[in-house]
Structures are given as structure tokens and as C-alpha cells.
């Protein structure tokens, strides 16, 4: 039965229910499994709960966990530094390399598809596998680097090098990921824009930076978000290397070693997790502001 047309945003009662459900189900799921636990973790960070028995057995210890983290927990400051280094390397080195490769691949020289696949290959591997594959190269006694160069540097074990060794492995994967995202974006750029720029006499570089890059705003945002997510949540790789100790401390590994396993310092671990949440939220706010400005 045809309805009377009342404008395209008009909703019948049935539509209203449908729209309501479409939005409510995913929203409730995310609230329930992401945001409620996040708030729960913040609350737990003010207790000394050991994770066993009812939560009511937890005692409120105020800010003690936070002061302990900041004053007498030696791995915290290195972890914070490592996280920032990680973010910086991904953002300043790995991401630009990925973008650059995408621009080159977009030129469709012969064999582009093959190169593209090769560069993307690491992305389908889990970070645990990435860690292992690089172990074959880095290993002190059996690794490729040392058997070729004859050095005896322990790339994963020596704290002077292991962060950088892990960053190379991580970048290896990250570059492929960014390359593909960006390539996808480039393919979507309206060809007439480039034509027009060319007619105006712009060089290729000018065309890219003045025309292509700006119109790729949404993809740029995705790349930014992905980079930040991957850097802040970096965990698996260093966890398989050495559980995030001895030069590879990251906040995520500190959280894990405090709350997972038998240590079960839930309160203390949650305080560390809250630091992570706070740092994340800085980027969340930046990101939301960019998106909002865009939407206006």
C-alpha cells in the first residue's frame, strides 16, 4: 500500500520502532561491553581488590594506587616514554612511508598488484606471529642478522636495542596497513580533479599536496585514528617478545602483568589502566573535534 509522501525523513510508527532498534541494539551492546567496564575499571582503581571473592570485599584506598604508580613503581615512567616513542615512530615514520608507497602504487606501474600484495602481506599476520617471524631474524644465537654480520647483539634482549627492534617489526606491519587504506582512498579521488590541476599547470607534487591530499580528508582521519589506536594498544608484539619487561615496558603490558595471572593486583592494575584511558581520551577528544568541525 502506497503511503502518502511526507518528505523523505518522515517516519511511520513502524519505521520509528525499526530505526529505534537499529540504533539501540548496537548501542546497548557497546555501552554494556565497552563503556560500563571502562567505568568499572576506573572505580576499581580506587580499591585494593585482589580479584578473588565478591567485589564487596574490596577496600576503598582512595588515591593510594595512583600515588604508588607515580612514586614507587619503577616501570611506569619507562612505559610511558615507550608508548610515546611508539606513537611518534608510527606517526612520523611508518604512516608516512605507507602513504608514500600508496601514492607510488597508485601510479599503476607494471606489477603494482604484486607489489601491493607483498607489502600488505604482514597485515594478515597476527602481531604474535610478527613477533615470532622477526625473532628468527633478531635472535642472538641463531638469528639472521647476527649470522650475516657476525655480531652478537641480542636484538630482542638488549634494552638498548629491543624497543627499536620491536618498532621495526611493528612498522613492517603498520606500513602495509596504511598503504592499503591510503591506496583505497587515492583510487576514489575523482580523476577530473587531477585533470583540472594539470590543465592549470600544477606539478605532480603540487597536485598531490594542494588537491589530492585535502580532498582525502576522511581517509586521512581514518589513517590518523588507526595509527593512534595501533600505537596505544600495542601489546601483543612486546608481550610475545618478553612480556613487556626489560626495555619493552608499555602501559598495556604493565596493566596485564598486574591484573592477569596470579598477581591479581586488580586495584593497582586498574589505576594503570585508568592512565591508559586518560591518555586515550586525549586522542579521542582531538579526533572527535576534527570530525565535528568537519561535519559542520
Amino acid at each position, binding site marked *: 500500500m502506497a503511503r502518502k509522501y511526507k518528505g523523505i525523513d518522515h517516519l511511520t510508527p513502524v519505521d520509528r520502532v525499526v530505526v529505534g532498534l537499529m540504533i539501540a541494539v548496537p548501542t546497548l551492546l557497546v555501552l554494556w561491553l565497552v563503556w560500563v567496564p571502562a567505568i568499572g575499571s576506573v572505580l576499581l582503581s580506587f580499591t585494593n581488590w585482589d580479584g578473588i571473592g565478591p567485589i564487596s570485599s574490596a577496600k576503598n584506598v582512595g588515591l593510594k594506587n595512583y600515588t604508588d604508580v607515580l612514586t614507587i613503581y619503577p*616501570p611506569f615512567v619507562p612505559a610511558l616514554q615507550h608508548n610515546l616513542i611508539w606513537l611518534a615512530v608510527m606517526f612520523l615514520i611508518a604512516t608516512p612511508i605507507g602513504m608514500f608507497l600508496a601514492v607510488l602504487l597508485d601510479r599503476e606501474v607494471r606489477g603494482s598488484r604484486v607489489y601491493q600484495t607483498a607489502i600488505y602481506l604482514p597485515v594478515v599476520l597476527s602481531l604474535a606471529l610478527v613477533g615470532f617471524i622477526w625473532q628468527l631474524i633478531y635472535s642472538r644465537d641463531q638469528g639472521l642478522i647476527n649470522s650475516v654480520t657476525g655480531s652478537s647483539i641480542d636484538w630482542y634482549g638488549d634494552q638498548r636495542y*629491543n624497543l627499536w627492534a620491536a618498532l621495526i617489526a611493528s612498522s613492517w606491519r603498520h606500513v602495509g596497513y596504511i598503504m592499503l587504506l591510503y591506496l583505497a582512498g587515492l583510487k576514489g579521488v575523482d580523476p577530473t580533479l587531477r585533470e583540472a590541476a594539470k590543465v592549470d599547470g600544477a606539478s605532480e607534487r603540487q597536485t598531490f599536496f594542494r588537491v589530492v591530499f585535502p580532498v582525502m580528508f576522511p581517509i586521512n582521519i581514518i589513517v590518523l585514528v588507526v595509527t593512534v589506536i595501533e600505537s596505544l594498544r600495542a601489546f601483543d608484539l612486546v608481550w610475545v617478545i618478553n612480556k613487556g619487561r626489560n626495555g619493552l615496558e608499555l602501559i598495556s603490558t604493565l596493566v596485564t602483568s*598486574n591484573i592477569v*595471572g596470579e598477581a591479581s*593486583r586488580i586495584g593497582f592494575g586498574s589505576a594503570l589502566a585508568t592512565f591508559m584511558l586518560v591518555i586515550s581520551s586525549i586522542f579521542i577528544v582531538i579526533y572527535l573535534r576534527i570530525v565535528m568541525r568537519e561535519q559542520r
Partner: protein
Amino acid sequence: MTRPTSEAEYLASLVPASVRGVSRRTLLRGALGAGTLLAAPSLLAACGGGGSGSSSSGGAATGTVTVGSNQSDAVPKAAIQSVMDAFQKANSGLTTKINTIDHNSFQENINNYLQGSPDDVWMWFAGYRMRFFASKGLAGDVSDVWKDLSGAGMSDALKKSSTGDDGKQYFVPSTYYPWAMFYRKSVFEKYGYTEPKTLDEFKTLGTQMKKDGLVPIAFGDKDGWPAMGTFDQLNLRVNGYDFHVNLMAGKEAWNSPKVKAVFDTWAGLLDYHQADSLGRTWQEAAQALQQKKAGTYLLGSFVAQQFGKGAEQEDLTFFNFPEIDSNVGADAIEAPIDGYMMAKRPKNEAGAKKLLAYVGSADAQNIVVKADPSVIATNDKADQAAYTSLQKKSVEFVSQAKSIAQFMDRDTRPDFASTVMIPAIQSFLKNPKDIDGLVNGIEKQKQSIFAS
């Protein structure tokens, strides 16, 4: 059966004083020291026989018993399987279902596992860890099982190690293994070395080994726990068993001159250790010993797993960690026990108890120690004639020790051991110079953790 491949697993494998040869006095002191970590255990109840459990371990047990196993490697997994098969054969009507979880995941999730839906019976470790879960109400009382085990080859000392703070038993031991300085007989013969009795002798030996192109002590601490063993041995030799127990219980200051002396002694020995230890696993370090690149290796007897069965394992032997202070002596050693526990509310209690009685028996343990000759059976009646020479030596070694101490993370709180001591010892290995800063840092964290 004991292959700690991760710090978590090792942390897990706590064990208190064990086995025959432990003097009653030491045991009592040990129990007092370690026991007061939680609440003073009921010594009388522990020493007196029998538990207070009233449910029957006999009767017709049928159905399925589930077993949580962290033995995911091929060889021990097969050994567990054959133990369970033998159990099923002996008890018609009972079947077992093994839930194998790789040891990393098992250890990391143990708290969640026990609070979720644990298996009827699961593999665990004696000591603080066992008592901790017992006191938290996460483990079932198996005193019934012990009524039978006590007369069937399980010593009183073992019973004590299986007893919780409330005087009831919560654990059934299976195997154990000593820590010592391992070496290859052929290497010592080739260079004409003799077993050193004192630290000075050891240093002389170490210097000679260096001249002969050997690494005196193989060493790997990537996983964080092996170096705890070194600390313990030094602490036992420098300060003695009682101090060790009290220090672990949080009753001694970590920044005391006594602890500093341990680290100082260790710093003086670091030259003899294999370099770059923080990137090396214990298996890789064991390879150095196996390939005759290193002279000795301080580890538990599970080091034998890295040696070929037969001739190569026969070539492996050990000596006690040398004496440092003659007033303290060298008669305290470490020998952790592995075994089984029961869920608080097992789905099949009668079957679970039957199974526990079986894994404590000589029959079951014979199967296990045969499959893994790097450990020895806890049951006195186990067939020692079939032991390898290393197993025989291990039995003799623990029976001669005056006091059998526990591993660092077996005597102290797990949160302290894993989140404070592992990073602390690793930072000592990186920078052995700043001992004052190190011990002060440990003490501050200890106070915060033990206060909560």
C-alpha cells in the same frame, strides 16, 4: 612434569619444605615463618593425622571426572594421558576428560579459571600458592584422600606441604625436583675439575673455566624467574634458611644490610655468568651447558629435558651450591613439588577423590617419572630401581638436606614476586652498581603491597 617455561608458570609453582629428611625443627620453623603470611596454620591439626572432612572417598564412584591440565607439550601430555588411561582401567565406570590448556594461558588465567567453572581436579603446586587458594575458598578439602595416602608411601612432611592454613589437606603431591649446580661429567673430567665446596673454590674454578674458554655459569633470565633461583641460593648461603623465610614473608626489610650483602655477593659473581642473560630463555642457556660451552648451570633438575635421553642425560650431574659463610653452612636447598588439587564444588566429588588417591599412588607416579626422568616421585613406594642416575642422585640430595627451602615466588605473595621482584632483579642484572637504590625501591613497594 615440571617445565616452567614462563614466569607465570613458575610463579605458580610454589612449594614449601618437602619430603623426607626435613628435620622436624626446620619444618616447624618453616611453617611458622611461611604460615604466618596468611594466618598461623593449625600446627597441631597438621601434625596429627586425619582431616576433619566427613564425606567418603570410598563408595561407588561413577561418571566422568574432568581434569584441568597445563601439560600441553607432547611428552608430558602423553604421560598424563597414560596415567588417566591406567586410572580408567583400574576403575571401571569412571572416565576422565582432560582439559588441556597451554601452560602460559593456564597460569595467566588461573584466578579466573578457578572462579569460573573449574574442572573437578586440576594440576597445581604446593606451597603458598596452594594455601592461598585454599584460604580463599577456591579449593576443595581432600583430607579424606590423605587418610589413605598417609599409609601408602606419602610422608608426613609431604602431608604438611599439602596442608592449608586451616589444618586440612588441599593438595596431592605428584613429583618434585631439586635446584642445584648442574654440570657435565665429561667436561669436568676433560679439564680435571673438581666440585667446589666453597664460594672461593668456585671462583677459582670459574677463573680456570674462563681460561679454558668455558662460560663458568650458564644463565638466562628472559622469563624473569630463573634469576630468582640464584638470589635464593645466595640468600640461603649468606643469611640462612630462617632469614629467607622471614624475608619472603615480608617480615625483614629488603633494604637491610643482609639483603644488600646478597646482591653484593651476586655482583661479584656476575663476571662468571653468561652475558646478555635478559634476552635468553632457560632453554637456550641449558643448550650452552649441553653443547659444552658452559661449565655449570644453576637450575632445577628439569634442565635435563634439554638433554638427550640415555647417554647424554647420564653425563649430567650436579653439586650443591657452594658454601659462602661457614657459620651458615650449605645444608639448605630448594626442591619444589607439583601435584593436583580439587575444585571447591566438583561435579563428581567421589570420582575426583578416587582420581586424586590414584595420582598420589606409586603406580601413577611410576608412569610419570618414567616419561619425564628429570623429576622424581613423591611417593616413597615408587619404583626407584628404574631411576636414572640423575634421579637417584636427586633423591639422595634432598634426603641429606637439613632444610628444604622454597623458591622465592613460592614463599612470598604472587603480586610481590611478579610485579616487584622480577623487574627489580632484572634491573639489577642490567645495572649491578646501584644496589642501594634497588633495595630501597623494593622495600617501598613491599611495604605498600604487604600493607594491603
